[in-house]
C-alpha cells in the first residue's frame, strides 16, 4: 500500500445534517451577552461602591480598583450592545443550527448530570456512569465495550490519583461501603 492511500478513516454516524435550520443568530446572542455583561458590571460596580470605592487615610479602599474596572466593563458592554445592533453581518450569521444544538446538548446535559451525580455518588461512580452511558447512547458503541472502557478508565484514574499521587477525590456510598 502506498503512502498516498487513505488508511485512517473514522466515520461519524451522528453527524449533524448540513441544511439544519438556525436556532439563533450571532447578532442576537451578541446583544444578550452584552446585556448580561452590563447587568454584571452594574451589580459588581454597586457592590464595590458599597465596599468603598474612594480614598481613606490608608490609601485606596478595597472597592476602588474593581469599581473602576466595573465602569470599564459596563462601558465596553454598552459599546458592544450598540455595535451588535448596528452590525448587519453578525445579525445574519448563524450562531447555532438545530442539529448542532442537539449535539451540544448531548454533551452538556450528561456533563450537568455527571456534576450532580458526583455530589451524591462520588466522582468515580459518576465517571463510570457518564462514560458508559455516553459511549452507549451517544456513540452507539457496543454495551460490553462501553462498560469495559468506563471501568478501565475509572479504575486507572482511581489508582493514579487516590493511590499513586494521593490526590483525594469526592467519594460516595460505594467507596464508604468498600472502606475508602
Amino acid at each position, binding site marked *: 500500500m*502506498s*503512502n*498516498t492511500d487513505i*488508511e*485512517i*478513516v*473514522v*466515520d*461519524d454516524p451522528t453527524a*449533524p445534517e448540513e441544511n439544519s435550520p438556525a436556532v439563533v443568530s*450571532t447578532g442576537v*446572542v451578541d446583544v444578550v*451577552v452584552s446585556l448580561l*455583561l452590563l447587568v*454584571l458590571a452594574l451589580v*459588581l460596580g454597586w*457592590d464595590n461602591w458599597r*465596599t468603598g470605592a474612594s480614598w481613606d487615610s*490608608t*490609601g*485606596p479602599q*478595597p472597592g476602588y*480598583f*474593581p469599581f473602576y*474596572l*466595573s465602569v470599564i*466593563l459596563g462601558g*465596553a458592554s454598552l*459599546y*458592544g450592545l450598540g*455595535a451588535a445592533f448596528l452590525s448587519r453581518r453578525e445579525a445574519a450569521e448563524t*450562531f447555532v443550527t438545530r442539529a*448542532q444544538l442537539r*449535539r*451540544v446538548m448531548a*454533551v452538556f446535559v*450528561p456533563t*450537568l448530570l*455527571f*456534576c450532580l451525580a*458526583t455530589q451524591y455518588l462520588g*466522582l468515580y461512580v459518576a*465517571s463510570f456512569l*457518564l*462514560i458508559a452511558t*455516553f*459511549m452507549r447512547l*451517544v*456513540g452507539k*458503541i457496543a454495551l460490553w465495550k462501553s462498560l469495559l*472502557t468506563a471501568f478501565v*478508565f475509572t479504575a486507572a*484514574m482511581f489508582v*493514579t*490519583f487516590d493511590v499513586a*499521587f494521593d*490526590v*483525594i*477525590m*469526592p467519594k460516595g456510598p460505594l467507596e464508604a461501603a468498600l472502606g475508602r
Partner: protein
Amino acid sequence: MEAFGLLLHGFAVLLTWKTLLLMMVGLVLGIFVGVLPGLGGPNGVAILLPLTFTMDPTSAIVMLSCIYWGALFGGAITSILFNIPGEAWSVATTFDGYPMAQQGRAAEALTAAFTSSFIGSLVAVLLITFLAPMISSFALKFGPPEFFAVYLLTFCSFVGLGREAKHKTVISMSLGLLLAGVGMDTVSGQLRMTFGSAELLRGINFLVAVIGLFGISEILLTMEERLALRGHAAGISLRVVLSVWKDLPKYWVTLLRSSVIGCWLGITPGGAIAASFMGYNLAKRFAKDPESFGKGRIEGVFAPETAAHASGTSALLPMLALGIPGSGTAAILLGGLMVWGLNPGPLLFVEHKDFVWGLIASMYLGNVVGLVLVLTTVPIFASILRVPFAAVAPMIVVSCAIGAYAIQNAMFDIWLMLGFGVVGYVFKKIGIPLAPFTLALVLGNRAEDAFRLSMIGSGGDMKVFWSNGLVGTITTLAIVLLFWPVIDKAFVGLGRLLRPARA
C-alpha cells in the same frame, strides 16, 4: 559565561532517573493531548496539573513544561495527516503539510514540522538562557510603579495589537481582572464581590476557570461539528529523516527569519498564531516562486512551525524574568508556580536558582527527547484518532472535573468549571478572546497590589507613573500601544494627504 555555568548546574539538578522519567511521561502525555481533538497545550497542562501537586517544584514544572512541548509537537500530526489543525497556530502548517501528505510525502512533511519545531524552540531557549537573567537582574530595581507600568503595557498591547474587536478584548480583560478580585482583599482583609457566599470567600481560582474555558468549551465546540476523519497514515524512516536534515542548510534564511519573528511575537504578547501566519506569509513573499506555496512546498511547513514554536517557547521568558506570562499556557504554568509557593519574577533567579536553571535545562533536554520520541512514534499517536470521539469526550470531561476539584478540594469548583465551560463556548462563538481573560485573571491581584502600593506611596498622585525615565517610558509606551490602531490610521491618513501635495 555565568549563564553557561548556571545552565550546567541546571543539567546537574535535572539529570536524575526520577526527573528523566517524569520528563518522558510529560512528553508522552503532551503528544497525546496534542493529537486528541478537543484538547491542546493549555487544557492539557491545566488538567494534568493536579498530578504534580505532591511533587517537588522542580520535578513538577519539568513534567508540566514537557506536557507543553509534547502538545506542541503533537499538534502537527493532525494538521499534516488529517488537515485538522489541533491548535489555531497549526492552521498555516496545513497549507503545505496536507498537500505534501496527499502527494505521498507525509513522512517528509512530519519530519520537517518536528525538526522546525525543535529549531524554533531551541532558538527561543537560547534567548531565554542568556536574556532572562539580564532582564530579571534589571527588573530587581523595579518598584511598584514600574511593575504596574509593565502590567499596564501587557494589558494595553493585548487591546491595541490584538486582531479581535477592541471592545471585546476590553470586555474579556476587565472581566478577568474583576473576577481576580473576588474574595478577600489581600491588603485590608475585607470581603469583596462575594454576595454572602461562603464558597466565593476563596476567590475564583484561575485554573478552574481555565479548565472550563478551554477544556469543557472545546468539547462542546468539537461535538458541534462533524467528527468524521479521513487521513493518511505515516511511518517515518531514518532515510527520510536524514534526507530532510541534509537539506536543512538550504532553508537557513527561512528558519532564521521565522525564529526571529517567533521570538519577537512570543516576548511581546503577539502570540503563536500571529507568528505562524507571519512566518508563512514572509516565506511566501520572499520566495522566487510564491505561486508554488500551498501546493506542497516544504518551506511552507518549515516557516510556520519554526515561528509558532519559537513564539510558544519565548512566551516563557517574560514569565520567568518578570512574572508576566506571554501566552495562555505560560499563564497556566505561572499559576502552577504559585501553587507551589514560588513567586515568579526577578527574585526567582536569586532565591530559587536550582529551580529556574533546572527548568531551563529541561527545555533543552525536553526538546531533544521530544524530537526523537515523535519521530519514532508517529504511527502510534496517529492511530489514537481511530478512537471514536464518543469515547474520548466523556473521558476529557472526567479529567477536567478531577483537575478542577483537586486544586482546592471543593465541589463548588466543579460547578464553576461547568459554568466557565458554557461561558467559553459562547465567548468563542461570538469572538470574545479568551487569552486576555486568562492573563487578567492570573495577573489581576498582582496588578492591583502594584497599583495600590504605587498610589499609597505617592499619596494618590497619578504622576507617580511618570516619576522617572523608566516608568514614564513604559507607561507612555503602554498608552501608545492602547491607541495604536488610531495612531496607525492617523499616520496613514497623513501620508495620503501629503502625497498629492508633494506631487
